[in-house]
């Protein structure tokens, strides 16, 4: 694949905000996001031009670990309380899925399971794999890893589904003592998990997948 020129080799740099292709000022080769404030601004949109997102590995790891720490209480603690005259029922994410399955809507149960369990877990695994392999400069399955990253970016925000369900039911089910729905702390942790994983995948720079020393084949 050496036939395809990369921007760094040609002394070019693309603006991540507006896409403009710029030429480095001669001698200014330190546009590497190394923390030294030597970056220049895009002549079109004035955003800072950087070869790679700054401190991509460190930031992504930090956000990913924070998200994982939030994900534990999000699953252990109940997210929603349904109360009626003679019964109080606390639901976790999983028990909500099970109930939906039993209530006769297995299709929706699968969707909720995917959004609340599969997608966050996939994000933790995928981003960890991407981080470890890119940090080692591995040439393994680069195309697949690039596609994996784009998948994570595409589906990430659908995890917010369960948060919206709890919010909507809380607002809807208010029949005095007869029947009430209240949000419980689990839903807050879950919301934070989703936001943090979104920030984590945004701070990962997919160009790092292709930066390693090994060649493709």
């Amino acid at each position, binding site marked *: 694949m050496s036939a395809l020129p990369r921007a760094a080799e040609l002394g070019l740099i*693309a603006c991540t*905000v507006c896409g403009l292709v710029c030429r480095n000022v001669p001698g200014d080769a330190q546009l590497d996001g190394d923390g030294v404030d030597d970056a220049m601004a895009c002549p079109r949109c004035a955003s800072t031009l950087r070869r790679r997102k700054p401190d991509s590995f460190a930031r992504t790891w930090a956000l990913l670990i924070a998200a994982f720490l939030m994900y534990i209480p999000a699953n252990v603690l109940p997210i929603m309380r349904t109360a009626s005259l003679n019964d109080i029922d606390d639901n976790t994410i999983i028990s909500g899925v099970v109930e939906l399955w039993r*209530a006769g809507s297995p299709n929706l149960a699968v969707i909720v399971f995917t959004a609340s369990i599969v997608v966050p877990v996939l994000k933790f695994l995928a981003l960890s794999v991407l981080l470890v392999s890119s940090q080692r400069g591995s040439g393994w399955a680069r195309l697949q890893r690039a596609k994996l990253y784009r998948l994570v970016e595409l589906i990430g925000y659908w995890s*917010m*589904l369960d948060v919206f369900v709890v919010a909507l*039911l809380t*607002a809807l089910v208010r029949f005095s003592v007869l029947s009430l729905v209240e949000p419980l702390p689990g839903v807050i942790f879950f919301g934070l998990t989703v936001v943090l994983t979104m920030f984590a995948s945004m701070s990962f720079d997919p160009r790092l997948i292709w930066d390693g020393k090994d060649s493709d084949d």
Partner: protein
Amino acid sequence: MGKAFPEKLLICEHCDTVYRRRVLERGEVARCALCAAELERYHLLSVNAMLALILTAAIVFVQANLWPIVTLGLSGQHSSTTLWGVILAMWREHSQVVSVLVATTLFFFPLLKMSLLGWLLWFARGGRRAPGFVPLMVILHRLGPWTMSEVFVLGALVAIVKAHTYFDVTADPGIYAYAALTLLITIFAGVDLRQLWDEDLEPAA
């Protein structure tokens, strides 16, 4: 200052490969030969068409926010809510974090996105750059994935099915407005807003 080559070259955002840009035919999508990411696609929608879509989305958005979404019935009692009812209920129930998340991703950011697009496209239609073009385009870029109306529609569907076990559920006009909004968002998802940078627009007066 870096020197710019806006028309001739194109760099893949996902792997930094450099390409010579060429004019795309109708329906064509340029993909990166190295990482298969989309580089650019043919602009199917004219500025006028985009503006029309945004205006439609704005009207539907107002309806989706004003009209109740669903009504529950339990032994003669009825209870319904709008989006702002949801936001206020979460705030009252000590889930302010969730309340703020819902308000930003379902109300403020979508509203901001539509207003910015409307403003920018209105001027682009007359062949001019809108006042504040550069900072507004940057804000639009940063809004990225933080508008979630389409997720809310699926959430409403799940909530309806869950509530259906215990209550009489009636779908209200708000849910249809949301469904229409989702459709418009899906059409708009294929639009690369970067084309506005490349349009040959006169600077704002």
